[in-house]
């Protein structure tokens, strides 16, 4: 039984493959959300929040399951990069936005948890932690070693997801309150994240040789060469990541502007 997408070294086939570990993971997240929403009281979570959470969950499921999960795990560096964007940059903010305010307030009632969150999601710590996740999970030795096993591949995906939650928490989550982190600083924070993406983008796009043995020696899927695939991965990281982050910056700017106008 293959529970999670990992590199298999076999020729690619456009034949659906089941990955029940992915379904279980997504199912558990969905169940946790629904149980949490029920425990918060009789009033249902508003439609927009529910759509945000399940939208994020859909993005996560698409990134982890066949075909994207399988292609990214063992065949194409560009698809692996698309997975990173979906898992770390797209799904977490949507899922965090999907949590109702009352869920965050419940967190605030647990002092030790709140203290840990306050530390872990401090913008400086969160940004630095995100940099650690981005750089270390894109190292050739790490990718080549982890992606060949289901457990290793799961670990990498989990690192991206958790790193994404930590990164987006200070921007999206209302708890812990950070009056010293207004919209303007949040925009700066997100801008710094675009700078973090620059280093792996540069290596991948302008590198002379293939970075990852995993993708260099994978059975070919498309007509592109290994180096072209790697360059696409680098450009995706920069531009795809840029689109996501700058969209968030734009939203923050609009909200900040509207608030200033109202004041």
């Amino acid at each position, binding site marked *: 039984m293959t529970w999670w997408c990992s590199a298999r*070294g*076999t*020729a690619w086939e456009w034949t659906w493959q089941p990955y029940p570990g992915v379904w279980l993971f997504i199912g558990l997240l969905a169940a946790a959300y629904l149980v949490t929403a029920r425990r918060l009281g009789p009033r249902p979570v508003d439609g927009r929040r529910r759509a945000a959470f399940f939208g994020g969950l859909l993005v996560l499921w698409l990134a982890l399951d066949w075909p994207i999960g399988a292609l990214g795990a063992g065949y194409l560096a560009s698809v692996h990069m698309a997975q990173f964007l979906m898992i770390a940059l797209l799904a977490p903010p949507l899922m965090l936005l999907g949590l109702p305010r009352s869920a965050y307030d419940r967190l605030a009632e647990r002092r030790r948890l709140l203290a840990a969150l306050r*530390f872990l999601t*401090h913008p*400086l*710590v969160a*940004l*630095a*932690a995100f*940099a*650690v996740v*981005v*750089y*270390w999970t894109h*190292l*050739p*030795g*790490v990718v*080549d*070693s982890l992606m060949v096993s289901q457990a290793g591949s799961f670990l990498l995906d989990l690192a991206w997801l958790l790193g994404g939650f930590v990164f987006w928490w200070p921007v999206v989550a209302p708890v812990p309150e950070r009056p010293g982190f207004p919209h303007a600083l949040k925009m700066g924070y997100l801008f710094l994240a675009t700078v973090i993406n620059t*280093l792996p983008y540069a290596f991948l796009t302008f590198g*002379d*040789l*293939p970075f990852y*043995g995993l993708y*260099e*020696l*994978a*059975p*070919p899927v498309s*007509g592109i*060469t*290994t*180096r072209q695939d790697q360059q696409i991965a680098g450009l995706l990281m920069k531009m795809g990541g840029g689109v996501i982050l700058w969209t968030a910056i734009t939203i923050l700017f609009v909200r900040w502007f509207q608030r200033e106008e109202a004041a």
Partner: protein
Amino acid sequence: MDSRGRGGRRTVGTAAALLVLATAAGACRLEAPERGEAARRAQETGFRGRVIENPGPRPDFVLNDARGGRFDFRAETDGRLALLFFGYTHCPDLCPIHMSSIAEVKRDLGARFGRDTKVIFVTVDPARDTPERIVSWLENFDPEFIGLYGEPATVDSIQLSLGLPPAMVPEPTAEDYEVGHGSPVVAFPAGDSIRVMFPFGTRQADWLHDLESLAAFASLGSAGASD
């Protein structure tokens, strides 16, 4: 200092430590284990491929050239670097990866690859690999690659003479079948004092490291380049 100040220092300190860890990733190679094997061979022999000392003369065979005529391997490659590989065009992995890697490195090296260097592909699946198909497939990688075909028994005997396993074509043959065959590319540098085998898993960095030295082998006068 009050607790808020201590907390602030701890936060900044943690962030700084994480940033150092993040940037250390750039300096940390963390290569996968198989890279160490190629590097070890390079330290021992100067080549990342597997060196065979005193291999004897290169094989003497004549096969059909997919572009027409006959190809005498020994005569056509005498005094020059030849890369010989046995595969088939329907191969899902090994064959296109080898050909693609060599083609990419050939483009990188340009003139340093050697004007006279020949890359020769011999099909182990003549039932499906018509001359036209061989030419078309090779041109995906490099139009200068040479494609050969011949009787299965002849091709098998050539492989056996090089220590490679004969092809295993499944019986009965469905339309879509895979052929078992040897994986290495065999490099014959000028002079034939060594032979170098490049197994599947040879990276483009390995090809780049070895091919320039192999192409210039006759003028070097001794084996290998240092790593």
